């Protein structure tokens, strides 16, 4: 393991020039457990390394495992919070999942994600950074190579009303021109000012720089890749708080601030990106072509919406305005090796597993399709 770490750091240093794959973390995380799927999709040996993962509870029952095993899923991303975050806990989950045929590709911690202390430099910022570094060290200890981070100061925004997807399924709605609120954890935020005053973009960029430069070394040393999630919705400012991850340029600048370390890349939620329409500098396919070809995308949130801002409703994966096949093709041609997860599924009748099975079935079809292309 310590050899791997040295390797990773060395590669990290060489990366700005060489654009080589970053270190053992992802490579280790992506080692495939035996796949049941027939290989008729694999024409002339060009099978992609795209992997479909479940976002699974860290406290699964045997039935949870059976469900994902039967869906043909052998990768997972898990989330917990400060109460449980530790190397022992992460390691115990990694082992439990591995014993059930599923690799833990990544682990998130809700209490070091979307933190206004970090985004707005509120009291307790340095303690939060220490907490983040402890999270990274715990991941390193457990041999888990990936975690998602988002830099939203006042959470993910929703309309006060819910939307309807196909067949009347309950779905998230957001409308700039109708009453809405931001939410992260137990905190709820409102217009016009969520934090008492209007913050400048320069302030939020300075705070991001302070944060990322404080943690990037720890991430490298622990073989952890941080994937930054877009601000959802990708509107440049909400309730007085600027949002940085709302454009192609924003991501480029962020990776520059992280010294282009391979420890910092993207968790590209293509659904969030579609919300922005043509306002973000590049569309989702363009983002994958740019950052994917540079091996900086570590995770994809695979979902769809009916129309872009100013008013969007989340859709079933096959029913929104984007041809998800073009997303899968872009991942394939850029040799994406990370995971794609079903995400934000409208509530199908019959409980949460129904929508998950639907999204996974659909994603598998597209993945088989692109694997069949020469």
């Amino acid at each position: 393991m310590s050899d791997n770490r040295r390797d990773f750091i060395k590669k990290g240093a060489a990366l700005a020039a060489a654009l080589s794959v970053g270190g053992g973390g992802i490579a280790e995380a992506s080692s495939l457990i035996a796949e049941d799927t027939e290989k008729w999709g694999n024409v002339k040996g060009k099978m992609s390394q795209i992997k479909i993962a479940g976002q699974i509870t860290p406290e699964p029952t045997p039935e949870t495992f059976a469900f994902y095993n039967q869906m043909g899923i052998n990768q997972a991303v898990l989330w917990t919070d400060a109460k449980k975050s530790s190397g022992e806990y992460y390691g115990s989950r990694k082992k439990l999942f591995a014993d059930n045929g599923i690799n833990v590709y990544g682990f998130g911690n809700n209490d070091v994600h979307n933190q206004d202390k970090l985004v707005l430099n509120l009291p307790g910022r340095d303690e939060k950074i220490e907490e983040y570094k402890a999270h990274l060290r715990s991941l390193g200890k457990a041999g888990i190579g990936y975690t998602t981070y988002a830099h939203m100061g006042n959470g993910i925004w929703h309309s006060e009303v819910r939307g309807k997807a196909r067949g009347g399924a309950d779905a998230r709605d957001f409308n700039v021109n109708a009453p809405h609120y931001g939410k992260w954890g137990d905190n709820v935020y409102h217009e016009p000012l969520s934090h008492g005053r209007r913050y400048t973009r320069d302030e939020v960029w300075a705070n991001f720089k302070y944060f990322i430069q404080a943690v990037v070394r720890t991430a490298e040393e622990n073989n952890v890749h941080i994937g930054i999630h877009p601000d959802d919705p990708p509107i440049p400012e909400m309730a007085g708080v600027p949002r940085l991850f709302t454009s192609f340029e924003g991501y480029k600048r962020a990776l520059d601030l992280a010294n282009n370390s391979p420890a910092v890349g993207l968790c590209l939620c293509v659904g969030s990106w579609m919300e922005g329409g043509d306002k973000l500098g590049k569309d989702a396919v363009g983002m994958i072509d740019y950052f994917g070809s540079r091996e900086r995308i570590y995770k994809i949130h695979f979902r769809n919406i009916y129309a872009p801002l100013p008013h969007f409703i989340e859709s079933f994966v096959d029913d929104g305005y984007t041809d998800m096949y073009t997303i899968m093709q872009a991942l394939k041609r850029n040799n994406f090796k990370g995971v794609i997860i079903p995400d934000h599924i409208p509530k199908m009748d019959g409980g949460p597993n129904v929508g998950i099975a639907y999204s996974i079935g659909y994603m598998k079809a597209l993945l088989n399709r692109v694997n069949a292309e020469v």
Partner: protein
Amino acid sequence: MSNNRRDFIKKGSSLAAALSIGAVGASASAKNAIPLPAQKVPWPVLEGPDTPKMTMNVGHNDMSSKVRAIKQFGADYVHMDAPALPWTQAEIQAIVDRFKAEGLSIINHRIILPPSILHNMAGRDEDIKKVQDAIRITGKVGIPVIEYNFYSHRLREGYYNSVGRGNARYLSFDYNRKMPNPADNNWNEPRDRRADEMQFAASELKATEAEPATSEEQFWENITYFLKAIIPVAEESGVKMALHPNDPPPPLSRGSAQPMGSFAGWKKLLAIVDSPANGMTFDCGVSTEIGENAIDVLHYMAARNRINHMHFRNVKVEIPRIKYTETYPDAGQVNMFAVMQELVRAKYKYGVFAEHPPGNIIDKERGGDFIGYIYNQAYARGVLQSVLTLEQGYKG
């Protein structure tokens, strides 16, 4: 609902236009990009008049909670187990209207033929008259296809549950397998097994009074009589008939020949009356179970315009007609993309039913096979949409 959806998209785009926010184009920019369809296909890809159509099974009494779920799965069509014959037109029209109100069109319905027709018994002509009337009613209410079976016995006794991916319940068939301890089967197969037949393999079972043995010759006589009587009525009524193949397809089923378990038999069937109304359900699973290449079967039937319904499922075959296992659609030996692609190229326009889902753990807990159907349906829909994108896009 599909109207609502289009309205919604229209509204969304006019709103976007008003606020000068355009839609994301799917342009590929990377230097190593593989070519995208020359003409951007409008998305989402919806089924059109000349494309296959995803369909799910309903009973004629099914209520709106089930129907609502079907809409969510992206199906705009259903196929239905029809009420017992005879019908009145008003009765069938009321069912059509009830589904229509939920945004679902009935793409076919399945009728059960009585023993008089299957075995040339007393009352055959009266019963054929009932079928003719049903065909006329079907045409009048605008249902394009009637599906039917023509066998004495379906050899379910050869089915058993096997362990699939992630301990999923797969359905296997073995003609020669002796019945194990029934207590080992904690799911739902085999069923309908008589206590006094427990020790026999399916291949050893004898005919019963209710389901007498039919020789190959008798089968052809009976089905020829039937088809010659009903296909002209179907043609007049604008209705197509779809005979489902023998499934499972072993050589004998309780002593009855199974001509509908072989490609040669299917060819012969289609020749009895040379009309597109005399068609079949193309089942890529059964086609593979009998040792054929499903694509060859598809080409043969499609070239003659005889595919009037379609079952989309996958299988792993050990011994053709004798021993095989039905699998998840992505885990069997049939290239499901090739199947869908050839259906699209043949301009097949009737139903695609992603049937026989493996038993899922969640379904085991709650009963039924709801989640299994969703997985199969979503997979088939993904296949259909990406094939349509590919085919329609390259046309431009």
